[in-house]
């Protein structure tokens, strides 16, 4: 039996006795709660769903956290959604933290571009609707956070979706997309956001999931970007080229991939060159 208790693990908190740990362990043992069958390492991998990039970087191993950074209006929302979409088509679950679009709009995007997408595998943490003053209630797909300030609440809702997909739906592959960190950084200081991400990038590893975190280029100082970069295993970079925007992947292969011009066609990212 392999159990760990985040409430009582030394690594996360440090410096307190093991008695409490043993108590919980005993309690659960006595109560016969055995979850070892749920603690399984899978060798699953992920694909972005952006064909040329996928060919060049190969399979992305589970537990990978990726920062996506690029200028405003370069289509980052669509690109993030396409990556999520690829997951849903691969029978993954998806958790999306939406800080700029109300949850309903995000759902609509998926319904619009691919009516065959299984909606019961999408969970959205909506940080917008409540701040607009609507008294909206949670639905199966959407959980309302009070605001982008409430990282504690956002964290609880992400965890609830992860549990639901893992335990009730028995899905073992999940993508988390936070769109965007830039909004969250408007309301909380860097240190606070760093702590939050430190915890959740770790949880993505534990869940063998894939994490995508979107950042607006030009909105943050160099220190912010450098600090956050430490938490990620790779990056998807977008820049403005001579004839529109370009994309590349960094950190998956010894050298970055070349820059590609791209066009967004519905739920497809078409790379040129």
């Amino acid at each position: 039996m392999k159990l760990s208790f985040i409430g009582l693990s030394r690594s996360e908190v440090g410096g307190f006795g093991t008695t409490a740990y043993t108590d919980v362990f005993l309690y659960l043992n006595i109560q016969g709660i055995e979850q070892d069958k749920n603690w399984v390492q899978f060798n699953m991998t992920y694909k972005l769903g952006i064909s040329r990039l996928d060919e060049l970087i190969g399979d992305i191993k589970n537990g990978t956290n990726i920062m996506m950074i690029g200028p405003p209006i370069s289509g980052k929302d669509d690109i993030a959604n396409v990556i999520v979409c690829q997951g849903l088509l691969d029978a993954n679950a998806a958790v999306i933290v939406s800080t700029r679009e109300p949850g309903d709009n995000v759902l609509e995007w998926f319904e619009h571009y691919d009516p065959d997408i299984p909606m019961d595998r999408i969970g959205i943490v909506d940080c917008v609707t409540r701040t607009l003053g609507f008294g909206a209630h949670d639905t199966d797909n959407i959980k309302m956070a009070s605001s982008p300030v409430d990282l504690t609440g956002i964290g609880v809702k992400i965890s609830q979706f992860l549990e639901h997909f893992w335990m009730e739906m028995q899905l073992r592959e999940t993508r988390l997309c936070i769109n965007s960190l830039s909004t969250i950084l408007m309301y909380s200081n860097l240190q606070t956001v760093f702590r939050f991400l430190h915890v959740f990038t770790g949880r993505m590893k534990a869940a063998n999931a894939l994490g995508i975190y979107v950042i607006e280029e030009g909105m943050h100082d160099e220190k912010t970007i450098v600090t956050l970069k430490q938490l990620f295993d790779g990056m998807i970079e977008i820049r403005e080229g001579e004839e529109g925007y370009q994309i590349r992947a960094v950190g998956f292969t010894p050298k970055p991939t070349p820059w590609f011009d791209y066009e967004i066609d519905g739920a497809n990212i078409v790379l040129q060159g």
Partner: protein
Amino acid sequence: MVETGIPKLDDYLYGGVPIGKTLVYYTYPGVEGVVFGMQSLCHAMSNGTSGVYVASSTEPHRIREQFSEFGWDADEYGDRFTIIDVFSGLIGADSHERYVVADPEDVRSLTQCIKNAMEDLREPGVIVFESLSTIMDLCGESETLDAIEEWNQYAMLYDHAMVYNFTAWPYSDDTLLSIKEDIFDSTISVGGITGNVIFGQYFGVLKANWTDAVRKYILFKILKPGGVRAYIPKILVTGPFDAGKSTFVHALSNRAVSVDRLGTTIALDHGHVDYKGFAADIFGTPGQERFDPIIKLLGGEAMGVFLVLDSTRAEDFARGKQMLEITRSFGLPVVIVANKQDCDGALTPENIRDKLDMPETVLVMPAVAATGKGVFEAFETLIDMVMEVG
């Protein structure tokens, strides 16, 4: 004493939080700890105590909505309920609350507000912090730790009880340690059982300096409405065919389904009970012998067992005992339900115990599952036994 209103916790703390004392719900990120403070506040206010809520991550009107989602009516508390609004200033919104901290990053103006609110309370009350961690994020770790000591001393002076929600993000080790072990009179750990994901939530007393705290851990679930419920994931209802198992499960449950054919192999009942601060999922096993392996399987994860017997059918008792043995091999608490007490020829519980040849310590309780008589008494008894284990 201010009761926390969290099931079992007041027992473990010998009544609750004494006035002038402090308690922190020390919650791990991703676990729903914020409801603990909210529930303690609303429980105290509905008992007539005055309450102050220090709102640092939610708009005041949303807080009142949250209360009502859990079934707690803020209007009912009248002027016994005050909010210190440490949130609106952050997003530049107007506030109509009595106490407003214009600059939430300034810990001294927060301290001033808290002192004012404490002075204004006419009698001992309870001050609950929605999120101490948010305050710490805004004001800094050491500044906040210093301020907490000041607030706590003031509370002692005015005989108020202090209750803090704290999320243990990876702050410095010193900060976490002093919150967990030093600056509060009691610490309640609100944690998660993790594998690949958090698949269960529990709480337990880590420390309480006014008593020898009971160090037990309780699994919980958050219900809407309802709030924090001690949670028992699996209680088994077993017994011979036709004894009244399905009837018993339905009589206990708020929601229940009976699946007469799941696939083609089994028939089982599943119900969810929400009763007096406890939530439980109960599973009825099929009675026929060919299903014994399934009972074994179900029994493996159960926390307690009901054996339902038809009190008029002594000839089935041996079979009942056999079914019990299948589950008892796992050492679970058991209550025997002497069902169909309304029928002619029903044996008394004592009689049944003799016929089963069971020791005095085994509880046999009378019931009429068809009318619901005795079923909740049996439930409470089993819950107590389950909670005593561990």
